[in-house]
């Protein structure tokens, strides 16, 4: 009997190693160690020809505070802020309307929303160049109707970048808002109305607080990728606007200043981890961010 039990525990041990071993090894080798290397590199010095010199320094972090990069940070935050605001303000009612539909219809609507993102969003984003150009479709249309006298400049402005970013991330932000609105018990809304609160008061005192985890998840899902996503800025912002993602990418490609690029990435990661920490502390689940 005792022997049998021992055998069982030995077998259990082997099966535990087989199950957990791969994911533990993979996370250590390809997530934890690389992030550690990134942090270490951010304190190193750039040598000639882009070689990393292993001399510890704080210069990279000091450089980030210089006004040149301050502009990039401001630009990133401005664009990410407006994109996120637009996404939540327009996405929330959309999610609310969807939650009132039958499952079959909301499924189709959600599908229609997601498919363009599933496919190369990159080329679809480029369609905005055709739309926003000085001689593009929108300008031509507005001129013909007579709403404007001369073509307005839309392309290569913050406006076109924000529209592109909104297009890219709105579908993903709708999902967590939809889940939290769907979970809301309609009895609570009725109770609020029975107790004499009007629709506006009910919305701000009941609906909004109870669906706030979904809103926060949407904010994270828009804000994070927005700051790091350099393609939209590249295509629709022209050379005029630069975001943190573009700056980091440049340090690793054109500028070959890897330690500085690493420092920028560390700062970006730190800001985002703080946001995620607040989110989980407020009761949000990491699973909802998938």
């Amino acid at each position, binding site marked *: 009997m005792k022997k049998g039990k021992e055998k069982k525990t030995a*077998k259990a041990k082997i*099966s*535990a190693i*087989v*199950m*957990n071993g*791969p*994911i*533990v090894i*993979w*996370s250590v080798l390809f*997530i*934890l160690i*690389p992030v550690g*290397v990134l942090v270490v*590199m951010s304190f190193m010095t750039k040598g000639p020809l882009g070689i990393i010199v292993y001399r510890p320094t704080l210069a990279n972090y000091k450089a980030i505070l210089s006004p040149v990069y301050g502009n990039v940070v401001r630009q990133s935050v401005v664009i990410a802020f407006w994109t996120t605001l637009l996404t939540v303000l327009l996405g929330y*009612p*959309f999610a609310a309307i*969807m939650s*009132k*539909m*039958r499952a079959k219809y*909301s*499924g*189709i*609507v*959600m599908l229609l929303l*997601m498919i*363009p*993102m*599933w*496919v*190369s969003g*990159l*080329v*679809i984003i480029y*369609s905005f160049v*055709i739309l926003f150009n000085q001689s593009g*479709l929108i300008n031509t249309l507005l001129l013909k109707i007579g709403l404007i006298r001369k073509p307005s400049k839309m392309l290569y402005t913050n406006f076109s970048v924000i529209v592109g970013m909104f*297009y890219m991330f709105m*579908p*993903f932000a709708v*999902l967590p808002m939809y*889940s939290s609105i769907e979970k809301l018990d309609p009895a609570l809304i009725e109770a609020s109305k029975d107790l004499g609160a009007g629709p506006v008061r009910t919305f701000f005192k009941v609906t909004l607080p109870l669906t706030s985890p979904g809103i926060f998840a949407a904010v994270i*899902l828009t804000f*994070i*990728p927005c700051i*790091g*996503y350099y393609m939209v800025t590249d*295509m629709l912002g022209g050379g005029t606007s630069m975001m943190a*993602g573009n700056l*980091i*990418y440049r340090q690793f490609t054109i500028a070959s200043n890897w330690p500085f*690029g690493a420092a920028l*990435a560390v700062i970006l*990661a730190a800001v*985002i*981890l703080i946001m*995620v920490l607040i989110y989980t502390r407020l009761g949000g689940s990491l699973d909802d*961010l998938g």
Partner: protein
Amino acid sequence: MYPNNQKKTGKQIAGEVYTALLLIFIYVPVGVMIAFSFNNSRVNMVWSGFTLKYYRQLFQDSELWHIFGITLFIALIATVLAVFIATLGAVGFRKAKFPGKKLIEQSVYFPIVLPEIVLGAALLLMFTTAGFTLGLATIIIGNTTLLLPYVFITVKARLVGMDPAIEEASLDLGADRFYTFMHITLPAIGPGVVSGAFMSFSLALDELIVTSFLTSADITTLPIKVYSMVKKGVTPEINALTTIIFLICMAGVLVYLIRNGMTVRHLKQTQRGA
């Protein structure tokens, strides 16, 4: 469209109009992309007549087919690896107790919590410090790492609804762990695994940032190719290519959803992270 309604209220009509407007906004650029793939002019801005020549050119472009093959290969291997590692891990982590488990579990979420550019930069720095040559292997490792949390989450979501007593019963009745996993656990979490795999594959096909950090000069994937073409100015060939990918993707999603019953729950399990 709505449950238990007799007559549409003004509010519902407003809701439908709003939904339609947002969907129109989403599909105008898609329509433009498709329309301009048939545009006779090489300069993409003006319409100058209908043609199919860019589709013909696309099918004759052997370099593009080669790139397409590489992209499929990377996406396939990375998906298999991610599904294998994450499925075992998600099942194993329920009962596992070992030091540092919490840290490992949190690190699995890193690739979706952090912007891809951070992961790309971190992996690039590690590989070059360790003296690895960048190439197919590093791209596959990068993609697998990126996909890991998506499979982990979808499988975990299935496990939540599963009664652990069923597995215990199987073990008590004399089945070994492998048999129990194959015949009890796997069928129960199967839909989650399939969703995770499906999502991973479509994610990997479109993955640009991490791949661009970890690639060498001689390996090009479809998204990298498309991006470099886009930067030079989109030609109708790219529109044609994306139109084809768009239609294939739409067909794939439709088949999947029709088989599984079209609900938001399934879509949520297959959603793509930004």
